[in-house]
């Protein structure tokens, strides 16, 4: 049971997260090869704007704004947050200079993964576990037998539910750390 949930849902999800990491590393490699490292320095700006744009869904969901189709905004949330994160990862590169921006990057990574778990994986896992329960019930298994059959799936699902709860708190951490980084750039970078 655990294998099926892992193979059908967790593994594709892992690949999706891996794609983000791969795109970031590949993009960083290309920028270095083309001598366009300076571009990465500025990718933090569109990346941040995209992530801020992705918050429209969060505001709509919590009724801070009343207009907009929730499903469309959710799709937009997923896309802009993923792309914004990719740009921020390219911006961060693989250069470890200061702690604050790296903590912000780490928080963003946790936030992205928790978001993907929350939406993409949790929904599928819920359907999968429910489907398994119905399948075993149709085969005439008793309720304790069904629960035993889907035990590991249920454990995995439960773990993912807890992981999902990290999404909002870690977003606040990410937002504050990113704000600290942005303020320091405004203070010390030569803008004019």
């Amino acid at each position, binding site marked *: 049971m655990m294998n099926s949930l892992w193979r059908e849902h967790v593994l594709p999800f892992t690949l999706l997260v891996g794609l983000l990491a791969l795109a970031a590393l590949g993009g960083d490699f290309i920028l270095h090869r083309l001598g366009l490292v300076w571009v990465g320095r500025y990718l933090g700006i569109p990346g941040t704007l995209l992530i801020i744009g992705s918050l429209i869904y969060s505001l709509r969901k919590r009724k801070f704004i009343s207009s907009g189709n929730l499903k469309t905004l959710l799709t937009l949330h997923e896309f802009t947050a993923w792309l914004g994160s990719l740009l921020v990862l390219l911006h961060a590169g693989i*250069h470890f*200079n*200061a702690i*604050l921006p790296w903590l912000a990057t780490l928080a963003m990574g946790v936030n992205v993964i928790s978001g993907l778990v929350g939406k993409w994986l949790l929904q599928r896992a819920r359907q999968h576990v429910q489907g398994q329960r119905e399948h075993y019930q149709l085969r005439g298994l008793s309720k304790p037998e069904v629960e035993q059959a889907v035990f590991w799936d249920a454990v995995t699902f439960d773990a993912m539910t807890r992981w999902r709860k990290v999404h909002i*708190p870690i977003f606040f951490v990410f937002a504050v750390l990113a704000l600290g980084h942005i303020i*320091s750039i405004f203070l*010390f970078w*030569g*803008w*004019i």
Partner: protein
Amino acid sequence: MSRFVKIILAANLLVLAVLAFVYPHLMISPGKLIVGHKALETDCFACHAIWRGADSPRCVTCHKPADIGLLTTKGQAVIKPLSSTPFHQKLVSQDCVSCHSDHAGVRRFRQPGHFNHALLQAATRDQCESCHKSPADSLHRQITGNCTQCHSQDKWVPASFDHDQAFVLDRHHDTRCVTCHLRNDYSQYTCYGCHEHTPENIRREHVEEGIRNFTDCVECHRSADEHDIRGGKGKGRGKDDD
């Protein structure tokens, strides 16, 4: 989000904020400073101005332009200067960050050693030898000044001048530059610098062929081969005969 989680989060972020002020060189600095600036690592505003970044007026409070290359910031004589001639005194403006940077994370991506000669005052800009040593090869040993006739101020190599385009230095012409370019003036040349060509024999030979315009030799002759005649020779002959 529970109240407990909120308090934990707020406390952690507060600690991070305090750390950013106490240890800015670890928390927000883009890499280590150079050794000479180490004492400034917790005093960001010693070099940075809000919005303007690293600020030249703050640099010159320690690095006096009149002393750069001559005296250290502590007033001691520079024992091993980085350039043969002090030139900071001859810059059109004191824009330090156009050439210099600090922080390891920033310097890593700066093109090293690229100096924009436009920053030099006009009177100094063409005096290449006041800063640069002439190469010791057989060609450059013969040349004094006028570097810009062949070299640009953007980069030394490639030299922009190909002598073969004007005249191929073959056979007896592989000689000293001053034979043709008197006083190392490469904007002019003469073919009468050697015993082979004299105004008289050149005039006689050309007049015999009906050529009267023979002041600019390389207009027709581009090598030692006197039969390899290019340019307007054919036209010139007809015109002159007329």
